[in-house]
């Protein structure tokens, strides 16, 4: 097959030494099943971490032992046995992975086909060997050179702990404390790796940064940790995930993302989450429990979260903004699509602390099949947040009569000059619209994709261009089989 041939050649071109080095490393990185203090120490030691990092992990672990798993989300899944998991470089992911694209589930490949993903990338996404990743080595190098020129630090969080300890110490846990919530605390104790970005004062990052192009972020497993700092007057756009479904063996994902934005700076954080959603009957699929939070620390700072959530069996995720700086702005634009047996409980928190802080929320939920989709959000205006503004719009679309769509917003206002508006609507896919499209020649699936894309347009427009086109296709693919 062309892809594997292509891959073999690339791997050979990269030379023997790298290949061996990688394999040796894999064999040595192994921690037994289960979680206890020794495992936490093992992870820290493996990464050669300084004392303070280990202490922080241990504090988190001890705290986690006292915590209960939250039950309030409108999601239903079997109890997770946290002792029955690997917390470091679970080897099954490597041994079980397919050797070539021939071994990959044909349905997955069909989806790639529809999304127009090139073969080499398909192999990488499906987890075919390690070589596909090598394809992007040259890309990465180019990236790094260009970023170093302007002083942007873009590396793995493990590397940052070694190379930039002062920045990590200052900001890690400053937005999501190690004691924040059950999943974030677990992450703090055992996070394996993740991304670190620092954009220095006055720098406008010359390119969109993405985990997609950073090789070592590909297999960081269940407990990713991301920390992005935008110093005064800087700007960065960060893309997370990719539009194609990732083959992934890990059932539990508990990631933490922290953003810190100083005076006049802006972070735009876009996510397309398309982890394996399980099959039509709801077997398998990822549990995605993510804590994402950004602090607008400085005056006139801005955070914009855009997410397209189509994957995972269970999603539990509330990208939030703490609007501390005067005139700071928080935005949350979300599309959550659930089909078959998927469950999503997602939304945002906008905490208005500073004067003239503004937030805007547009959440579009689409439920099909037997799925359940919930928007859960909090808009909180503190007494000192003079002149705060929020506008929230939540629209739900139901496709079929076996699914559910729910809206649970909390609004807390402690300042009279605040203007808070919340609107929500629920509707079904209109038979009239469907017929109109079909009369003009679109088949049922194309018609659904078109109508849902129209429903989501306001949010799709917020995505960076190159992402938006793929995301549009993804909307259609996610809803396949939902009508007719």
């Amino acid at each position, binding site marked *: 097959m062309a892809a594997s041939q292509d891959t073999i050649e690339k791997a050979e071109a990269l030379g023997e030494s790298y290949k061996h080095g990688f394999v040796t490393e894999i064999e040595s990185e192994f921690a037994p099943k289960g979680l206890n203090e020794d495992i936490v120490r093992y992870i820290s030691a493996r990464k050669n971490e300084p004392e303070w990092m280990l202490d922080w992990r241990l504090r988190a672990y001890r705290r986690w032992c006292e915590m209960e798993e939250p039950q309030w989300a409108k999601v239903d899944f079997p109890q997770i046995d946290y002792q029955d998991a690997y917390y470091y470089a679970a080897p099954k992911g490597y041994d079980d992975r397919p050797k070539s694209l021939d071994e990959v589930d044909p349905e997955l490949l069909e989806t790639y086909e529809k999304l127009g993903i090139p073969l080499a990338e398909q192999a990488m996404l499906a987890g075919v060997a390690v070589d596909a990743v090598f394809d992007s080595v040259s890309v990465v190098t180019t990236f790094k050179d260009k970023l170093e020129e302007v002083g942007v630090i873009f590396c793995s969080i493990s590397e940052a702990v070694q190379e930039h300890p002062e920045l990590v110490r200052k900001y890690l846990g400053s937005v999501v404390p190690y004691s924040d919530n059950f999943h974030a605390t677990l992450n703090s104790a055992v996070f394996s790796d993740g991304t670190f970005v620092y954009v220095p004062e006055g720098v406008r990052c010359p390119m969109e940064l993405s985990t997609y192009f950073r090789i070592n972020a590909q297999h960081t497993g269940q407990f990713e940790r991301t920390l992005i700092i935008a110093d005064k007057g800087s700007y960065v756009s960060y893309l997370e995930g990719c539009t194609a479904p990732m083959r992934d063996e890990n059932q539990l994902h508990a990631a933490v993302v922290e953003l810190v934005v100083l005076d006049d700076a802006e972070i735009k954080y876009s996510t397309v989450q398309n982890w394996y959603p399980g099959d039509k009957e709801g077997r398998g699929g990822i549990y995605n429990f993510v804590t994402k939070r950004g602090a607008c620390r400085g005056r006139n700072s801005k955070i914009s979260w855009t997410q397209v959530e189509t994957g995972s069996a269970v999603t539990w995720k509330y990208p939030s903004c703490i609007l501390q700086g005067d005139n700071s702005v928080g935005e949350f634009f979300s599309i959550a699509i659930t089909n078959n047996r998927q469950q999503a409980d997602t939304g945002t928190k906008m905490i208005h602390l500073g004067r003239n802080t503004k937030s805007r929320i547009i959440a579009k939920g689409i439920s099909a099949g037997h799925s359940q989709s919930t928007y859960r959000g909090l808009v909180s205006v503190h007494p000192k947040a003079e002149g705060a503004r929020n506008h929230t719009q939540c629209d739900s679309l139901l496709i079929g009569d076996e699914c559910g769509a729910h809206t649970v917003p909390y609004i807390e206002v402690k300042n009279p000059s605040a203007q808070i508006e919340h609107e929500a609507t629920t509707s079904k896919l209109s038979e009239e619209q469907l017929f109109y*499209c*079909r*009369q*003009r*020649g679109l*088949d049922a699936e194309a018609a659904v994709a078109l109508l849902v*894309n129209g*429903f989501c347009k306001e949010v799709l427009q917020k995505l960076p261009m190159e992402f938006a086109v793929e995301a549009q296709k993804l909307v259609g693919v996610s809803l396949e089989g939902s009508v007719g």
Partner: protein
Amino acid sequence: MSEVMLKIENLHVTAEGTEILRGINLEVGAGEVHAIMGPNGAGKSTLSNVLSGRPGYEITAGSISYFGEDLAALEPEERAAKGIFLGFQYPVEIPGVAAMSFLKTAINAQRKLRGEEELDARGVMTLVQGEAKKLNIGADMLKRSINVGFSGGEKKRNEILQMAVLQPKLAILDETDSGLDVDALKLVGEGVTALRAPDRAMIVITHYQRLLDYIVPDFVHVLAKGRIVRSGGAELARELDQLGYGDLAKVPAA
């Protein structure tokens, strides 16, 4: 008579258990324009819906053949690809989908179903803009969500634009004149007339004669209580306009 394009024989149709069409017979040849007139509730819209395949109607007897093929067996989009176009009485609003991108999607969906090469964005743009100009439709309207916030006249002009761009073989215009003022009526009427062609047939459904001042039909049929009770030439429409449907609606079909 020219080549028979559409042949409806003894068509009986029910919707939600009520019989609405009770034995329609109609032949439409290439290049012909047929007007179907009749009072409210006669079954005019049902006929257009059945021809285009809207769900919710059941054919209990009779047949519809289109170029010799059984139309009832086809999905709405298959009929569209085979050249059947329905101009909606109430064009549907689709928020978030721009009129232009809708047209591009529709053109290429049809071309794909017919096994033809898809048009690129530039090709579609050239095609659409040429036709839009004739109908006095500006670029601005094409960028807006389809039919959302369009006036009655804009919606109908947009329907005719789609017809012009999709180049159907059989166009069914369902009460295209409803909700139009005199100027808009003229524009739409002339737009439709310009699309008359030897290989294209049209069925113009209307309550009033006024649209037929602009689209002069070759045949006029009066539909009442689910049957065609009278057929004639263009002069029949004027006769109806003067006398009303009162007597005709009472006449049982032969």
